[in-house]
């Protein structure tokens, strides 16, 4: 599967999430040491796995629910099958429509930001006006 720049950015942030998680839970090893060089197939494999973990955490998924990066969207919908449930496919398609990578580690936040941008309004907490930046 070809990875876009948006996917690679999401995977990089997923690896950063994994590093932060490992720091807060040192007894759990998420990442191999040393990490494979960035961009190699081995790195993509590790980063994809971490992206799934980050998505499960940020989406509050139950163990039997599939993360967007593990959903199979090949036209077959089966509500009794992991990765093919209608709600799982719906979320994956929503991400693609909004231009969000399926490897996005923080899916709820990314959806919120994309929908806000689509609606054309800006959060008062993320103003890019120079005055606000100085104040912050």
């Amino acid at each position, binding site marked *: 599967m070809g990875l876009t720049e948006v996917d690679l950015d999401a995977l990089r942030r997923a690896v950063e999430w994994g590093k932060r998680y490992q720091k807060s839970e040192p007894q759990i090893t998420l990442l191999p040491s040393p990490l494979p060089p960035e961009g190699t197939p081995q790195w993509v494999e590790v980063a994809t796995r971490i992206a799934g973990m980050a998505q499960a*955490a940020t*989406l*509050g*998924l*139950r163990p039997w629910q599939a993360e967007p990066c593990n959903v199979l969207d090949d036209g077959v919908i089966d509500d009794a099958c992991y990765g093919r449930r209608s*709600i*799982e496919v*719906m*979320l994956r398609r929503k991400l693609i429509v909004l231009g969000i990578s399926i490897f996005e580690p923080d899916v*709820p936040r990314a959806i919120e930001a994309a929908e806000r941008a689509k609606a054309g309004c800006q959060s008062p907490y993320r103003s890019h006006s120079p005055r606000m930046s100085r104040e912050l």
Partner: protein
Amino acid sequence: MVAGTRPDRNCDTPLLAAYCRAIALERRSAAELGAGDDKALARWERATKAMVALSMRLRLSPQARAPNNPSRPSRPEPVTNYYDRMRLEEADSDGTDRG
């Protein structure tokens, strides 16, 4: 509240139902009192008392929601399951409740 509740906490349901009934009773008693029924005052008082007690137990009152309540240890808010949220939003936009 329902989406944020762990599946093993269904025991809250009777309390929540009683809280809803207390609110309904309070509203009705207040309307009756407004219409001039003096006997509704006692019913209104009892309903208000029940509302306050149940809201405290269910942690719905402003005092129970306060973030800096030192009697409770700070714990991160549980993340609401996103698929549940999507289903609720979908049911809401359809104007139906599919459970």
